[in-house]
């Protein structure tokens, strides 16, 4: 059966059995008789450790507000998948749901609804602690200077005024980099978020717009490391050697594997997300495409490859909220989770398919609304509408 798989994992075949979830009681109770299942576990010895240390999931709570319960549920399922970083893309153009104590107007003017669609300080604390209890880091992202439309109403003068001829057009662009007031605002605001989020790293964004490199100086003074999107590197912004660069673009300016090569050749650490944009959906078992990604398939020395510290599955929120987040995330994100945890040789699609189908039924049993990967059934179908 699956014994030959174990050889690749370096385990003696005698002690190696197919990896079914423990407690799978389906086979133990005859179908015709209702019975109380007993739980069993095979005598087993497992040694395990992750291939990559940073195995993340990005949630976007700006395009659509996600209730705190949804975030906590996601943390639970991440733990089932051994994912260990929640990349919380908390604010963006459409809304500012983060409750800022230093600039309450940000929330009051920027949230979709400042009473119902907000993450209070307590909410943030709850998320961080819930994650911590599961061994999950919370990496907060406050994306600037672009993606900041929602910051404008609460902090007049923060965003660049666009002009139509010589008159302001009424629309705004990115954060205005030339004003002292901007600098002062960022100083204060990032002091607040540095304190609110205990992880060593903050994600500063920097995508799709020329970055303001002085922001990096600010953040460094708060004893934080920072993660940035790849544009900051591509645009040759001066960054510290311990910056982490997140690769999200599949083909531009170069294919993502080449981008990893360039970043690591420059001595910087890298995170891979480009082929793992799970918000992009298509018909069929697209988890396979995510599974087949090999993050280290680029030209480079062993030292370079060691600079790829992991990756993140991203669930951008333009078309996603609590109505469809869970089935869209799971079990597709599980494919990414295995790619980041398991050995590179664990790559056979048939083997993965049969385990993933069983794992998906186990997720259902635990109350996770994970969607099917193909035709079939689980002993307990989802029935919680």
């Amino acid at each position, binding site marked *: 059966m699956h014994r030959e798989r174990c050889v690749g994992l370096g385990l003696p075949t005698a002690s190696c059995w197919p990896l079914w979830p423990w407690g799978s009681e389906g086979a133990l109770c005859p179908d015709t008789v209702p019975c109380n299942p007993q739980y069993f576990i095979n005598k087993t010895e497992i040694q395990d450790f992750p291939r990559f240390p940073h195995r993340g999931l990005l949630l976007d709570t700006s395009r659509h507000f996600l209730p705190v319960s949804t975030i906590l549920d996601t943390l639970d399922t991440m733990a089932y998948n051994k994912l260990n970083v929640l990349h919380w893309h908390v604010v963006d153009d459409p809304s500012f749901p983060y409750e800022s104590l230093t600039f309450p107007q940000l929330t009051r003017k920027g949230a979709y609804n400042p009473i119902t669609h907000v993450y209070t300080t307590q909410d943030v604390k709850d998320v961080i602690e819930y994650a911590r209890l599961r061994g999950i880091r919370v990496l907060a992202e406050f994306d600037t200077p672009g993606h900041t439309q929602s910051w404008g109403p609460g902090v007049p003068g923060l965003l660049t005024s666009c002009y139509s001829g010589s008159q302001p057009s009424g629309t705004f662009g990115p954060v205005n980099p030339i004003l002292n007031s901007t600098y002062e605002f960022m100083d204060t605001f990032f002091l607040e978020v540095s304190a609110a989020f205990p992880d060593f790293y903050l994600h500063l964004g920097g995508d799709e717009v020329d970055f303001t490199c002085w922001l990096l100086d600010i953040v460094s003074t708060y004893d934080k490391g920072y993660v940035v999107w790849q544009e900051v590197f591509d645009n040759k912004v001066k960054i510290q050697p311990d910056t982490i660069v997140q690769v999200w673009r599949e083909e531009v300016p170069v294919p993502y594997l080449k981008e990893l090569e360039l970043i690591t050749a420059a001595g910087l650490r890298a995170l891979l997300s480009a082929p793992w944009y799970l918000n992009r959906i298509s018909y069929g078992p697209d988890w396979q495409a995510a599974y087949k990604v090999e993050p280290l398939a680029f030209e480079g020395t062993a030292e370079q490859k060691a600079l790829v510290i992991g990756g993140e599955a991203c669930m951008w929120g333009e078309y996603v909220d609590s109505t*469809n987040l869970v089935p869209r995330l799971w079990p597709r994100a599980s494919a990414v989770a295995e790619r980041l945890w398991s050995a590179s040789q664990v790559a056979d699609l048939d083997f993965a398919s049969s385990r993933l189908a069983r794992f998906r039924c186990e997720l259902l049993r635990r109350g996770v609304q994970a969607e099917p990967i193909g035709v079939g*059934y689980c002993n307990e*179908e989802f029935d919680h509408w």
Partner: protein
Amino acid sequence: MRLHLLLCALLAPAPLAPAASALRNPGLWPLPLSVHLSPHLLHLSPETFRISHHPASTLGPFCTLLQKAFLRYHGYIFGAHKTRHRSPRLNKHGQLQQLTALVVQDSECDAFPSISSDESYALNVSGSVAVLKANEVWGVLRGLETFSQLIYEDSDRKFTINEACITDSPRFPHRGILIDTARHYLPVKTILKTLDAMAMNKFNVLHWHIVDDQAFPYQSATFPQLSKKGSYTLTHVYRPKDVREVIEFARRRGIRVLPEFDTPGHTQSWGKGQKNLLTVCDAKEKFSTVYGPINPALNSTYTFLSRLFAEISRVFPDEFIHLGGDEVDLLCWKSNAEIQKFMKQNKRFKDVRELESFYIQKVLNIISTLKKRPIIWQEAFDDHAKLHPDTVVQVWINRDYHLEQARVTAAGYPVLLSAPWYLDYINSGEDWRAYYAVEPLNFPGSERQKQLVLGGEACLWGEFVDATNLMPRLWPRASAVGERLWSNKEVSSTKEAYNRLTVHRCRMVRRGIAAQPLFTGYCDHEYNIEK
């Protein structure tokens, strides 16, 4: 009647796309045939507002269907109000106190809806009593949905409605959703929830593709082995009481249940519980027996089908039965020695396609004897089977589907359109716009041909769909199809539709339907599964 017309005339017709200061967009979906909204507002009190029968109505409190509907819509309108504190005091003047339902014709309350049901209604909201007038009970159901969509909570949390005059009737009589309970079993609760959502979108046919290759969950009283051997497990079945529950739940919402027992292909699971039903494909290398479609050469096949369809006719009250007939593996038939012999014996079979026609005709005769009307997928028509004149052909193959519609209607058969509405084919972005842009009568043909288009169906095949993702995948994408099949042809601006559909989507979410977002934004009440 004249009084109502007069009232409509008194209301200053207001544009539906309101000017800056004027009317809030109620987000009616699907858009009724004619809507006049007045800027004059009325308030409703959740404690005292009632829906009741008009004294002149042919139906009264004995009509359970309407009694339940009144309760249901009261719940939809006032929703979570129960959990809140006492509602704000209302001025007695300017209060809408009642909605009365007036059924004009002798309409049977216990009847099942049909293809010829009258779903038209007129709604007049003004003064203290609003009137919902309809020819048949089905129009009342449609009108109740529209009425509920007019009501909203203002900034003072008062339930508010604009005075309005609406007349409405559907463009197409057959507006369906196909669910597939073979590729994945769908719990009964999921099917009932789908029916609720369908009613909110004025869909009126549940096309239940109940069995297929992978599983046979339909528990047959005549042939119990079919589900015993053919279902995924003994709990993945629809017992007779489950089927009855679905049919009655649908009826109460004016929705027909159209069962599909697809043959001769798509029947692998049938062979598990019924020996000698399927053709054995003669393959060169025989590692195991490979089965193909139902064997058309055996008399026992038709005896079996007669008995099974007799049961199906009794269990499912709708006039129509869907017989399938798609994707038949003709090569398997060709490879079978028995069938080759059968074909040689009957000289009229020039090729295996004619055998397919022979089979279809036999099944059509069975259905006809049972006084039911058949619907089939397009293949039997494409392969030149001789169909009964009123056989409905469902067009599902996407390539040049408008030409197929032309061919089918030119031959005189009624048509259902599904080809551009395969909702299981997901992709990123706003694909609802493509569904909305379809024009079902956009094919070359005479007026008479166009009249043969009965409507269409959004199909949600189940290869990658089950109860975990069905609701967000169906809604609100199917809503786009719903409006295309109900509303006037001219209602075609996706920009204008977007503004209404976002309101409608949030309303569905508020009512407990996990309808996914159209785009970036928010609802006042986000979706939260009750834990």
